């Protein structure tokens, strides 16, 4: 495909950026939203991979680009797996439990996008753990 104008190049860039936006260079760390999914043995057994995939799909469908979706080890709430912790900049982290794929979708659409907490799934709100 030949690029014939600056506009075409910009379009090309926008299409390509999706492929690389996982790689933030560390300069704007601290301003991005972090979603951490507990992916220890218990989490995986309880379906954390499905949760993770649902989170990712929802993020992509809504075109959000300032979210880091990270898998982490055991968060210590094995009774309520899968667990998802949401770190919004300058806010206390919120830990959600029993997050199936529908709840995962709600976390992104209600909490991340609209600031509304997802009831019945909050394990801990406000605690000193990054």
């Amino acid at each position, binding site marked *: 495909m030949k690029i014939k104008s600056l506009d075409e*190049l910009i379009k090309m860039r926008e299409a390509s950026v999706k*492929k690389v936006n996982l790689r933030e260079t560390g300069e704007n760390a601290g301003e991005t939203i972090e979603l951490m999914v507990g992916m220890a043995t218990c989490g995986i057994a309880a379906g954390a991979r499905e949760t993770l995939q649902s989170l990712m799909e929802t993020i992509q469908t809504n075109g959000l680009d300032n979210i880091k979706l990270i898998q982490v080890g055991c968060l210590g709430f094995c009774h309520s797996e899968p667990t998802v912790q949401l770190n919004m900049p300058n806010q206390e982290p919120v830990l959600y439990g029993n997050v199936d794929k529908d709840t995962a979708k709600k976390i992104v659409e209600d909490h991340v996008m609209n600031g509304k907490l997802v009831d019945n799934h909050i394990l801990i709100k406000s605690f000193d753990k990054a």
Partner: protein
Amino acid sequence: MNKVRSHIMVCGGTGCIASESDVIIKNLNDALKKQGYDEEIDVIKTGCFGFCGQGPIVKVHPDNVFYVKVKPDDCDEIVAEHIVKGRVVERLLFDEPITEEKVKEHSRMNFYKKQYRIALRNCGLINPEDITEYIAFQGYEALGKALTDMKPQDVIQLLTDSNLRGRGGGGFPLGRKWGMAANNASDKKYIICNADEGDPGAFMDRSILEGDPHSVLEAMAIGGYAIGADEGIIYIRAEYPLAIKRLEIAIKQAQEYGLLGDNIFGTDFSFNVRLKLGAGAFVCGEETALIHSVEGSRGEPSIKPPYPAAEGLNGKPTIVNNVETYANVPAIMLKGAEWFNSIGTATSKGTKVFALAGNVNNVGLVEVPMGTTLREIIYDIGGGIVGGKAFKAVQTGGPSGGVITVADLDTPIDYESLKGIGSMMGSGGMIVMDETDCMVNIAKFYLEFTQDESCGKCTPCRIGTKRMYEILDRICSGEGEAEDLHKLRELGEMIKGSSLCGLGQTAPNPVLSTMEYFMNEYEAHIFDKKCLTGTCKALAKYSINDNCIGCTACVKVCPTKCITGKVKEKHVIDQDACIACGACYDVCKFNAVVKP
């Protein structure tokens, strides 16, 4: 739906490939497949991260975890632990040398903290074999902007205002050079990229070409537009096979996308780039010698003027710039002259890439703003001297530069300040030496290099450097005479003053500068027949002191059987038969062998 949620970046620079990063990529892919994660995790081969001493480097996005010294056998564990279970593999994290802390994120490492990356901006971030990744990080936008919104003279004005100077050594202002070539009317002009990196220890140009080849192609096209050239040539040494391969891929992709070739961005500007492989002669880094080599003649310099900007390749106006210089151009075009001027010192703007090597903990490529002090580079970024030894000197500018001692560690580095303390910027090689390095031997090493690389066209360089090398060799083998010091100085000044090109004009610098700062070592070699550090084997005299308990360990390892003594009694070394190999010193557990 794109299911990829994580990128594993594996360094694909020459250094890391030499430590099997190719196998690591294969093993990671195999492990991902085995675990069923190959669709959601991408393994990407990227350019040099610069932290070569800790290679191979593997970085995981988006968690931003930086693994060092990864071995092919570690891949299963990285996938099983990090990718499947989200647990960081602690043992592969970087150990900060001074604080002895494990550091997970590269942005928190001292090695990266003080760096500012312009020329290396995409190295380690993109896949250099995929043009769309370069485009994703604003690649070719500077060229598009220049071609559609700017006149050639605007481009030159912007680069003149930015005060970008040549990064290959001389530091000539780029805008002025381009302006001269633009003003010389001709039916044909050329843009040449000097990728004939030859300083011992310098590898920044190779890393840029391997990690971000498009940035150089884009800058050359901008140069072509600015001066009115339609042909670009990259003169690269055949010893850089990976850089050549990546450049060939990059040129092909840029042509496919219409970013090189005819009517770029739909304008009537056409530009093509081809490679010219050199045989790796140091003198071909000199621009006139380089041009002769491109023409197919012997790589020998000729007298300037005429400068290449007036009469260069095939007698036509030609611009020769170095790789790192070009890599800066697209960034300046996009961010503006003011931004570039905000970085650096009064006379030197922007950043400089240094290849940090020698006896320093964090060996690698570092890019720092001009004006950073040597102390910051060696101690903060470099993590100090290996084994906690004392710093002795640092050689900048490769075989053309000189040594800088502890007295000048706090000098902010720029073109002028380095010249002021008797060294030079050069291409940015930085070799750190500690208390165990013999400075006479170092000077000899550089002279051996330059006399070997002298093209032989002019007498002072051809014969003069050879004679200097012979004198140094004599001093190191214990046959130096008092008069040698005077001869070295006289020869050095003469070669500097009468050589045709930069190679000869700077070749005596390592000798003259070590003579200035470390005269005591020269005198020790000549008058006391002693090498203070024990480096010069011919002068080394090992002996055994009273710590000896007669364990006979040294007797067993001595290759010349020159150590004698009874068990449980003090041993003696026969100085005449000793070849000073140091084996006894290494094996002794009682500090009884005295190193000279």
